[in-house]
């Protein structure tokens, strides 16, 4: 599974793309954290219909709202323990006009 960090999310994590052999969301980000040697986690709040990217900055955990798409489908609509697809894209949509 490819994990792509798009607009703003790439700056939070410090990389553009990673690849892991895993389809369980929790396990995917355990592997991502291991690879980056810092905590990176995608928190899916189904009740609030929101997704947050947790990253470490200066030893502190920072939580940012993001959109995560698994092969083009919002991850909130996916089975998080059996993600089907080949790519998760995480980015921060912006609303300015």
């Amino acid at each position, binding site marked *: 599974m490819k994990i792509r960090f798009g607009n703003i999310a790439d700056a939070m994590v410090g990389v553009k793309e990673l690849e892991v052999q895993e389809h369980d969301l929790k396990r995917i980000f355990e592997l991502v954290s291991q690879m980056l040697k810092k905590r990176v986690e995608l928190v899916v709040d189904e009740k609030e219909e929101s997704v947050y990217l947790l990253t470490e900055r200066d030893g502190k955990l920072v939580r940012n709202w993001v959109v995560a*798409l698994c092969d*083009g489908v919002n991850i909130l609509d996916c089975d998080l323990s059996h993600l089907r697809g080949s790519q998760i894209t995480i980015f921060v949509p*912006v609303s300015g006009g």
Partner: protein
Amino acid sequence: MFERHSQLLKECMDKIFSAKVLVAGAGGLGCTVLSLLVRLGVGTIYLVDSAEVDEPDLNRQILYDLESIGRQKVKAACEKLKKINPSCNLVSIYEFIDENFPMPKVDAVVDCLDSFKSKLTLDRLCQENSVPLVHAGVQGFVGQATTILYGRTPTLNQLFKKTLDQRALQIFPPLVVLMASIQATEVIKLICGENESLVGKMLLVDLLNNRFETVKII
């Protein structure tokens, strides 16, 4: 005034001359979208905004100047646009777009609004009226754009779910003009029936790092 692009668009020019487009928001994105659609020859344009021109708008809202400050954006924009192409039928609507907004019958709606709340309201209005929506958002050096065809692509509400508005106080002016130019191109592609558009794709732009990527959306 169209001879320098009519050969590119050929028989589609007639479709453009008879097209009706609603531009929601006459701010940063809206000014460039409006300017381009008028210059391209779109027949009827509804421009909707409920704000007045403020001095900080002038860095990116290309239809306004110092004399526009304090005036209704729709009025100042209309005057400028009429001087560019008097044959365009411009309908200015000084109104905030909410759930009760009476959507006119148009071929496309362009989302140039500046908050997720209003963008998602516009999305619901377009879905109710089955009219394609060309979306964009900008902040800092980054932006995204997509074209929504209801029934064929996810809606903005399905894509973004519960959104958090971050007030974008800093916006790089060239990014705004770039994203608005992409929106105007998408409108022309919708009118002309071009296949290679942002339907089913989200374009992510990071102008500072020269990154342009498209992500499939289902």
